[in-house]
């Protein structure tokens, strides 16, 4: 009986302590996260959190740079900046430039083929090997400053004890505290808008919405640049949309089915996606009914790493209703939101998202645009794309996002060949005339 008597006081104390801490924790959770989310009110806590994080990151980067200098290592420079200054000249201008440099002949009797013409193609080719505009859009952006996530910096070696301790602490906080907290929140929501708002809180997403007077209205189409599935959560927490997309299997499919119950979304079977007329018909039916919610579409067709906007597929621009462009730009310092679907699956991606520091982004609602007289869908799509790129500070590219997975079409090469041939043949015609 003796030992049991000895244990009891401690046991009781422990139980009481545990009980109290659980209650306190739960109340805090309720008060600070769930209740404000329901009412859409925010405390300044997240912004303060953001500012503190930034200061820590700056210090950490300084430490790494200093450490590298002391040990005479070279820092691994981030790759995303252009390393070659390419001037935007055309094929014809450049080849003429080469010929002009070498030739002291009178240029009116322009020569046709010169052996030096290959230098133009050769140089362009090697320049693109050293650095090209497209392939770097499909991998995560690399950062100049380190944000204590090993995954975003290749310079991480043991520099100083303090840095390692800080990193260790960061890991503990992120995986032991932020992640479970977020998972619990993520799994516990039911209602539509409230649930999206909780997601936003759960991911510690700090979103700044600009120009909300331009928010998409019923009967319109909302187009945005695509970086990750979180784009949907971000937009949907500020307004109701009808989603368009393919029915997926697995986790995504379950989520999609549950969403349909709340709001009339437009989901397609994989076989139906191929039939463009069917898709267009369903979309325009939905749009004509002005009681229905605006459709949310990502015309790039795939996730891009948020440094550029790639070609918009013209399908959504053919329907002929008002288009509400939205630009979404993530701040990469707090966690990389880009989903590289060829590298990570959905669950892996979610895990990474929930264990980063925060998701900080800006959303700009641009004024609505409609197709003008005589403008075809492709031109309209480029116009909208240019507006989004300009607002978000992204590079406007003509290349197709499909290049992430497929090869470039031969028609582009044929265009280059045609341009060059015109140079050769054009001069021949002049000759025969004179």
């Amino acid at each position, binding site marked *: 009986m003796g030992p049991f008597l000895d244990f009891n006081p401690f046991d009781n104390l422990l139980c009481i302590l545990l009980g109290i801490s659980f209650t306190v924790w739960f109340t805090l959770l309720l008060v600070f996260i769930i209740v404000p989310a329901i009412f859409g009110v925010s405390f300044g806590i997240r912004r303060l959190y953001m500012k503190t994080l930034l200061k820590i990151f700056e210090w950490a980067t300084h430490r790494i740079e200093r450490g590298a200098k002391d040990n005479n290592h*070279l820092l*691994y*420079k*981030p*790759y995303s900046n252009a*390393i*070659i*200054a390419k001037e935007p000249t055309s094929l014809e201008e450049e080849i003429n430039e*080469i010929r002009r*440099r*070498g030739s002291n002949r009178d240029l009116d009797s322009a020569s*046709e*083929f*010169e*052996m*030096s*013409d*290959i*230098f*133009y*193609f*050769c*140089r*362009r*080719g*090697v*320049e*693109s*090997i*050293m*650095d*090209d*505009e*497209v*392939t*770097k859009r499909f*991998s995560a952006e690399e950062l100049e400053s380190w944000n204590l996530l090993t*995954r975003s910096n*290749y310079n*991480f070696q043991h520099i100083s004890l303090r840095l390692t301790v800080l990193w260790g602490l960061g890991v503990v906080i992120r995986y032991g505290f932020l992640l479970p907290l977020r998972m619990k929140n993520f799994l516990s929501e039911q209602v539509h808008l409230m649930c999206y708002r909780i997601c936003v809180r759960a991911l510690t997403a700090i979103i700044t919405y600009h120009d909300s007077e331009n928010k998409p209205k019923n009967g319109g189409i909302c187009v945005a640049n695509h970086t990750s599935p979180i784009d949907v959560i971000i937009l949907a927490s500020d307004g109701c949309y009808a989603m368009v997309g393919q029915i997926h299997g697995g986790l995504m499919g379950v989520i999609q089915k549950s969403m349909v119950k709340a709001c009339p979304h437009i989901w397609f079977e994989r076989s139906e996606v191929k039939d463009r007329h069917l898709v267009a018909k369903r979309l325009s039916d939905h749009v004509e009914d002005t009681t229905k919610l605006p459709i949310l579409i990502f015309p790039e067709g795939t996730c891009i790493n948020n440094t550029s906007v790639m070609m918009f597929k013209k399908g959504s621009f053919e329907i002929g209703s008002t288009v509400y462009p939205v630009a979404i730009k993530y701040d990469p310092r707090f966690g990389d939101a880009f989903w590289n679907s060829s590298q990570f699956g959905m669950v892996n991606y979610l895990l990474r998202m929930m264990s980063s520091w925060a998701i900080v982004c800006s959303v700009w609602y641009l004024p609505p645009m409609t197709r003008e007289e005589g403008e075809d869908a492709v031109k309209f799509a480029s116009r909208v794309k240019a507006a989004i790129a300009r607002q978000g500070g992204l590079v406007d590219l003509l*290349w197709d996002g499909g*290049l992430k997975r497929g*090869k*470039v079409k031969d028609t*582009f*090469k*044929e*265009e*280059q*060949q*045609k341009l*060059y*041939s*015109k140079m*050769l*043949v054009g001069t*021949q015609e002049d000759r025969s005339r004179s």
Partner: protein
Amino acid sequence: MGSRASTLLREEEIEEIKKETGFSHSQITRLYSRFTSLDKGENGTLSREDFQRIPELAINPLGDRIINAFFPEGEDQVNFRGFMRTLAHFRPIEDNEKNKDPIASEPLNSRSNKLLFAFRLYDLDRDDKISRDELLQVLRMMVGVNISDEQLGSIADRTIQEADQNGDNSISFNEFIKVGNVYILYIDIDIDI
């Protein structure tokens, strides 16, 4: 992601490449970063498909020839050393290199090595002569289907006529130098790091 950090270049390798190619420390690490991002298989070498994945290169009419120039005879993979060796041809000639010790081996980016690189784009069979057929092949690659065979043939004939000096109806390296020498500095690429 983790594997990239573990295959960072070692200091000795960087020094060797620096001596061989003349690129600076920071240029080498930058180009290494580019090399690894192209290397989808993550095995430390690039194959022809890795190059062809670059859209701007895939649409270049001479794309295949340029890619070939990176691969030594009969091989299908190029490692980082080989990659840098080929890129070295495009490094601009600096003033302080012109007066270097003539006994030391010629730098990769010397005028005559640059010319040799360009010559080899034409001379596929490496017999040190550009025949009419080889010239036609390159012309055909550059113009596609837009010019007829006869027209192309006459362009080729005219070019050989102008350049050929010993009457063997093909262009040797020495003849090529006289034609190409003036333009050669055009292929220099300034890497701004």
